[in-house]
């Protein structure tokens, strides 16, 4: 799943696409793309003219008409090919996802609790509402909600993330995805979808392009392309009467042939962008896939490029999801050294980032940096979802650390005292936006609290630079946090976000989004919790974390399989890339026309007005070779640009003016120059091969 990127030119894929492009010659398919449909009609017309020429009544030599006709058909085929390759790549990605869909045996419970009897059924037979038991080592048979139990689940098949995640009933971590595996403990899962409707099924359907609809900008661009096509249709169609008149008054030559007019028309209309347009759209969704993001519609991908405001959750996005130990607050009568030592011992076997950070801090305070600490003969107590504490039993001491309320309950249960000063320290730390972790010790029946460890938010490395990048792109970043505004302001300043929303409630988030939208801005956000769902539904681009709840996934228009909130930035870039590719190829396509005019106009009227020969600036050999070269160039350029259409135009986070200047230079000026060289080269080749 992680390796969805594949070679552009996979052999089997290309063969499949080649066959597919022939199948798509049917008019029912062609009519969907107005520009290419005109080429299709033109090809049909010249085919008829060729047959007429074979019968001996041709307007031009049959060989010439045949050559033009063949290359016109190639033009249609190449456009079909581009689309087929893009779709083929999508299908290959979908196939990779399908590999996850294996039949698994589910333990279907008679009643919705863990103790109930069960019988095994294949996962396909599960229906919405069924309840199953999943134990350590089992594969979860379908998407569902945890109704009972706590377990660690390996979701790497979906997310590529190797660290297991905790799933438990109630709250934001109750959603499980079919195909993932329970590593420890057990869960009772209520299946929430019918077979064929699972999240994976829908993802596959999406990528296969079966339900691809044109995006708003694609529609607007198609209108422009149709307008250009009509303009050129007008310009070429009226050339026939103009030519007849000119021949009449000049008294020499013969009127321009329909074959030449069709060739001119096909060269002029924007076939390059017209032929690649849908491939660009399909490839855009494919590129999201490569980033492990499933977009529910092309519209969402396109909207991503338009985003003005990014709402980012503080935790996990801006700061490391794991807080780190920053200070010790010993209880009355306890030295800091004592507390640090206890915390160190309690964390020795704690391999979580928090635990390791406590070890590091304690060693620093105890001036034992680098020295190995051994606690021979100790027994370690691991964290469980029930106790919410971990620690060590060693030399008669039993040290525990954990969430303040868990430790408080632990102390009180052992008859110890929870002093007001400790509670004060806990509250102070919490108020600063940090997490208090209490450390307690019990030996010989006496339990006492040693103090509190402060775990603080650490802003992710490099995030400040990303935000600066976004600012250059014109995107405003807003940090969303449940912290109070003091803490929020401190972190916001450190991370370099433009704004923050502190003490955020779901209502406040929703209000903020609406307010930005009211001002005409497009808002993107990520979310995973059920309480994020309303805001996700309101946001224009809403990326739900795959680790999030079903409600969040339903409300979003994209799902990030990696559950990496920073991904939003890449999503925006991919959206922009898709639009840029369309714009660049449109510019290129139109700029190409200048050279084509210089090739075809002197050729078409050489007999009537030899003086127009001065316009043959490329020095093309004969009128026939000039026209053929232009048509061949026009067809080949589609093939040549397929990789660009699939990969997208390179995006650099710059201001709008800088990007435009660069793209105008590359695709506008480039589009002017390239065909002059290309047509001349093809002409030389035709002459060299004695084909013209």
């Amino acid at each position, binding site marked *: 799943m992680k390796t969805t990127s594949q070679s552009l030119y996979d052999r089997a894929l290309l063969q499949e696409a080649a066959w597919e492009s022939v199948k798509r010659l049917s008019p029912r398919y062609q009519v969907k793309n107005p520009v290419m449909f005109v080429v299709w009609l033109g090809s049909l017309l010249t085919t008829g003219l060729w047959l007429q020429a074979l019968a001996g009544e041709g307007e031009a030599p049959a060989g010439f008409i045949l050559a033009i006709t063949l290359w016109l058909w190639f033009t249609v085929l190449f456009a079909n090919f581009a689309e087929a390759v893009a779709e083929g790549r999508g299908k290959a990605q979908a196939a990779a996802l399908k590999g996850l869909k294996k039949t698994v045996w589910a333990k279907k419970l008679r009643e919705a609790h863990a103790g109930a009897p069960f019988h095994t059924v294949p996962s396909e037979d599960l229906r919405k509402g069924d309840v199953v038991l999943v134990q350590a080592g089992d594969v979860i048979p379908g998407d569902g909600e945890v109704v009972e139990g706590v377990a660690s689940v390996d979701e790497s098949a979906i997310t590529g993330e190797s660290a297991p995640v905790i799933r438990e009933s109630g709250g934001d971590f109750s959603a499980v995805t079919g195909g993932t595996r329970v590593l420890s403990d057990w869960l009772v899962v209520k299946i929430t979808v019918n077979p064929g409707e699972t999240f994976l099924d829908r993802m596959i359907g999406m990528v296969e392009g079966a339900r691809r609809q044109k995006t708003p*900008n694609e529609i607007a661009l198609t209108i422009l392309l149709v307008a250009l096509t009509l303009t050129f249709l007008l310009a070429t169609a009226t050339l026939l*009467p103009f030519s007849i008149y000119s021949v009449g008054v000049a008294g020499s030559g013969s009127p321009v042939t329909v074959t030449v007019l069709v060739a001119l028309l096909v060269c002029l209309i924007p076939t390059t962008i017209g032929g690649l347009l849908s491939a660009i759209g399909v490839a855009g969704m494919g590129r999201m896939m490569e980033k492990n993001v499933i977009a529910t519609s092309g519209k969402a991908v396109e909207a991503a490029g338009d985003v003005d405001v990014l709402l980012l959750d503080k935790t996990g996005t801006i700061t490391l999801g794991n807080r780190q130990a920053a200070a010790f607050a010993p209880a009355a009568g306890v030295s800091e050294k004592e507390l640090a030592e206890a915390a160190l011992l309690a964390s020795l076997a704690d391999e979580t980032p928090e635990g390791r950070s406590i070890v590091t801090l304690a060693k620093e305070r105890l001036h034992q940096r680098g020295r190995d600490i051994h606690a021979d003969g100790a027994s370690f107590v691991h964290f469980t979802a029930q106790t919410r504490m971990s620690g060590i039993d060693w030399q008669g001491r039993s040290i525990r650390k954990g969430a303040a309320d868990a430790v408080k309950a632990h102390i009180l249960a052992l008859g110890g005292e929870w002093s007001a000063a400790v509670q004060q320290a806990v509250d102070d730390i919490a108020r600063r936006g940090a997490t208090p972790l209490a450390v307690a010790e019990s030996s010989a029946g006496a339990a006492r609290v040693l103090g509190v460890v402060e775990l603080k938010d650490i802003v992710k490395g490099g995030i400040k630079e990303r935000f600066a990048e976004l600012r250059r792109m014109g995107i405003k970043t807003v940090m969303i946090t449940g912290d109070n505004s003091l803490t929020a302001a401190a972190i916001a300043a450190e991370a370099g976000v433009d704004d923050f929303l502190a003490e955020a409630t779901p209502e406040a988030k929703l209000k903020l989004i609406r307010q930005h939208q009211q001002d005409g801005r497009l808002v993107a956000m990520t979310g995973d919790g059920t309480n994020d769902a309303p805001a996700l539904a309101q946001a224009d681009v809403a990326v739900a974390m795959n680790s999030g709840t079903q409600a969040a996934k339903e409300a979003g228009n994209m799902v990030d399989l990696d559950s990496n909130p920073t991904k939003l930035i890449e999503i925006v870039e991919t959206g922009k890339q898709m639009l*840029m590719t369309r714009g660049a190829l449109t510019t290129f396509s139109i700029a190409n026309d200048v050279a084509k005019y210089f090739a075809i106009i002197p050729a078409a009227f050489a007999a009537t007005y030899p003086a127009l020969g001065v316009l043959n600036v490329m020095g093309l050999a004969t009128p026939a070779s000039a026209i053929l070269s232009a048509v061949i160039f026009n067809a080949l350029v589609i093939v040549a640009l397929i990789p660009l259409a699939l990969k997208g135009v390179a995006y650099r986070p710059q201001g709008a003016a800088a990007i435009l200047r660069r793209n105008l230079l590359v695709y506008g000026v480039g589009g002017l120059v390239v065909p002059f060289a290309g047509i001349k080269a093809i002409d030389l080749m035709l002459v060299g091969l004695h084909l013209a």
Partner: protein
Amino acid sequence: MNANLLLQYGFFFAVLFLLAWPLGLYMARIYRGDLPAFVAWLRPLENFCYRLAGVRHGDDMGWRRYAGAVLAFSLLGVLAVYALQRLQLWLPFNPQAMANTTPDLAFNTAVSFVTNTNWQAYGGETTMSYLTQMLGLAVQNFLSAATGMAVVVALMRGFQRKEAGGIGNFWIDLVRSTLYVLLPLSLILALALVGQGVVQSVAPYASVPLTQAVDYEQPKVGADGQPVLDAAGKPVLEAATAREQTLALGPAASQIAIKHLGTNGGGFFNANSSHPYENPTPVSNLLQMLAIVLIPAALCFTFGRWVGDLRQGLAILAAMTAILVALLAVEVWAEQAGNPLFERLGLATQGSELMAGGNMEGKEARFGISATSLFVTVTTAVSCGAVNAMHDSLTPLGGLVPMWLMQLGEVVFGGVGSGLYGMLVFAIVGVFVAGLMIGRTPEYLGKKIEAYEMKMAAVAILATPLAVLLGTALSLMLEAGAAGVFNPGAHGFSEVLYAFSSAANNNGSAFAGLGANTPYYNTALGLAMLFGRFTIIAAVLAIAGSLAAKKRIPPSAGTLPTHTPLFVVLLIGTVIVVGALTFLPSLALGPVVEHLQMVGVR
């Protein structure tokens, strides 16, 4: 390029911008109803107009209603002008007893003046009564101009308003354009022109004896009014002697002022601004050229002020000026280079110490090459169509310039109002492609450009090429059309192409040399004028309505700036590329091939 030339042109543009700036800002206030003190006393008159017509202040029209009002008002105008011409013999102010015009000519002329085209298939002093000129043509000179201004003001409101249902009130925009802008400016200009010697009189034509009688031959006219032909099909000539000359007079100055200010261009006299009574001196010539571009240039300032950033208007103005100056350079170069065929005959046409040289055929000696070239370029860049020289006599490339300026869609300054709204349509198209290239849904001045705007922009941009190319093609194929071509060949082709370019783009200038006063051409060109004018107006108002309903997105670093030189280049590129790609083949068969033949390329 000599210093004199640069000085003349530099002076022209300097004065133009100095006048356009304050006028533009003045108009920005006028259309908001915020009258400066020096015109505030006219407010009762304005309100009186509304009371008379039953127009309520604050009655905001949606775009369909606005367009309906424009169409209804224009239809009424066509009917009125048509009736005046068809009945002029029996109406007052007809001292020369001009006959009623034919139905096709009346249709053509009525449409022509209502669409701000002012294509003239007739000679003014030999066809129209004073009443027709004053009540029909001169009135339409004001109203057609005011209509164009109203439409562009509606489009500006589209950009300015946020989530609004309406785009203003046509009647109010119409009255304000006329009362506060066109009338006062015309009054000032008319007086200035009278000062230069332009006639203003309702007296009958004057007759003066010639100091020397002139003998000449003229075609003999039969009883049916058609020339009598001999056996070989040539007109029979008869001898005649002229002893006196008729000097055509009339209320010219008042009509000529608005003819230029309103970018109408319909001359009082047949010879238009080359007639000594219509444009007697280099000073009147300068005033008339300035008057042509003044309001179109000023509207750019109005636009900038209305969208809250003067630089937006300046960018449009810069794009227009750049295209104008570039083509002016081609024009003056082509005309000064003259015709090499004369050189081969031993006739000196090159400029020297003793003579200015160049192609003087069809030009007035009092204006010369430089002032004529400027006039030619300005009158076709702006959809005015007044001429101070005969465009048919321009060199092939010198004729290509005005023809192509019209084919660009009359957006290089263009007609009053129509030029700016046409240019804004091109800006929308340019911004669309550019917007995609920067990876955002395109937006212009905070308004998203989406499928609907593109559809309407496409309609607006396609309308005139459709009319020009189809009209030309049809005319060349039909007997009735080909019959009017007096110069068969590449030049004859240019004449037909020029006629349809002029009509469809509502310019009104003509390559003479085309017998256009025939039922066929009167009808075909009339239809082209109607189609070109109102298709675009409807599309533009639809865009205005759609934009007004949208939110206005605040600009950010990701927004494409539309006041920079880069945008100016983009806008110029869009206009040129669309114009070039559409018309390159037909221009190649007309002026280009004619030029190549002239310079002797085989």
